[in-house]
């Protein structure tokens, strides 16, 4: 059960996310976010002391959200091939239903590393998400479906591919909807990673 303060924080995060997506990270100020929520700027600072702190909390929020979704897939008793497809489906589904989340991940978190240097070292702030991807790989190797290799060579292939597709979609370059690519992409990724 969330406390009132946690609920408010989540509201702020969601509003900040949509403002960042609309106006860009650097063009959005704390007063803008406060205004969107009909809050005073002073009250806003009770929840987040600075825009940088808010930025880090947002990436953690997204990581927990996506990590939780992938965990649900990891805990299912299905083949690695099926898991691959389900993870891709949920990633694209999130890109469609919550585009601001994936947008933040790709355009703000990965492109403005200076904001995240202190406090988000390495992959600390995306830990839940990366952990579940690791478990998906590890279990795939353990049951003999996936080829054992360096984690990052597999991670780059998987996330680079998905991120690239969502980016192309965001640029209005893709001729079809994301979900229409799920079968082909699942086939390609599984084929590339399997033994």
């Amino acid at each position, binding site marked *: 059960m969330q406390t009132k303060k946690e609920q408010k924080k989540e509201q702020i995060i969601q509003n900040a996310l949509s403002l960042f997506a609309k106006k860009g990270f650097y063009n959005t100020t704390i007063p803008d976010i406060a205004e969107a929520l009909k809050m005073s700027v002073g009250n806003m600072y009770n929840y987040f002391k600075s825009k940088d702190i808010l930025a880090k909390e947002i990436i953690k929020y997204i990581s927990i959200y996506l990590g939780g979704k992938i965990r649900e897939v990891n805990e299912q008793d299905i083949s690695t091939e099926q898991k691959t497809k389900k993870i891709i489906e949920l990633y694209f589904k999130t890109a469609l239903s919550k585009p601001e989340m994936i947008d933040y991940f790709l355009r703000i978190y990965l492109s403005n590393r200076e904001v995240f240097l202190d406090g988000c*070292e*390495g*992959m*600390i702030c995306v*830990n*839940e998400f*990366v*952990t579940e991807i*690791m*478990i998906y*790989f*590890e*279990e*795939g*190797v*353990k049951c003999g479906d*996936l080829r*054992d*290799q*360096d*984690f990052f060579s*597999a991670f780059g292939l998987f996330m680079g591919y998905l991120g690239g597709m969502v980016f192309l979609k965001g640029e209005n370059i893709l001729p079809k909807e994301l979900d229409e690519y799920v079968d082909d992409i699942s086939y390609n990724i599984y084929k590339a990673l399997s033994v």
Partner: protein
Amino acid sequence: MCKKLQILWLSAISCNGNAHSFLNYPQLDVFLDNFEFIYHPIIESDYTLEDVINKDLDCDILLIDGAISPEFKKMDEPIINIVDRYAHKAKKIVTVGTCATFGGIFSQSGYAYTTGLHFNQKNPTFLFKSLKDKTISISGCPIQPEVLASTLYAIKKDIKLKLDNYLRPQEFFAYTVHNGCTRNEYFEYKIDNHVFGKKEGCMFYDHGCQAPFTNASCNKILWNEVNSKTRAGLPCMGCTSPDFPKQNLFKTKKNMGIPQDLPLGVGKRTYLTLAGVTKAFKIKRLEEELF
């Protein structure tokens, strides 16, 4: 002086490594004031192996060293008959070493059904089930001399030892080899830049060290009162474990970068979360030579 307890050291399918290891017990002379080997394969004793087999000797404690197989004989007498005869006379039985406890490396010998006295690796065996209540297991390849000696002293003093599921005294086997390892700081910060024989680096991440999931007291009771494998710069090979010996002892088995065997009782998500945090930081002091 109190009566010396009579011990029969019976070697089954064995390399005699445990008998040799026991010779390194630092207080062996005091030990021999308290115990007497009626037969021992190396230490001088009153009786010969022939006497053990042909006569009906008294013994308080039966030590079984080496794996058991119905096919294996000593001087034409099946080992299981010798074990059976003396086990019923003895007040206590101690399986000495991993072979006598779990089968060990001799499980792969040519003898059929080679196992430990009560276990075939992790699985219980039933041939000597009735003796389970008076058995204590001391696994190790070889045994740590102090662990065997202290167990025998406890028997002498009628101290009831708490045993684990493999009948091993928890006093020595509740710990992991990781407890007391001088490389713990490197483990905490996930640094395995180890070079064999050097003081720096944890060997768990790349070099196959099994200390975090092996139950034994090697870093609590140092070998020869001096050192342990991991302190000296050699990975723990898990020699007290039921599935010893595994293969590729100098390489950590990993699946896509994640160690297959994790520290005892640590869940995969917990491990990965911690690893993710610590790997994000570089601790300069731990990257350098100690001195």
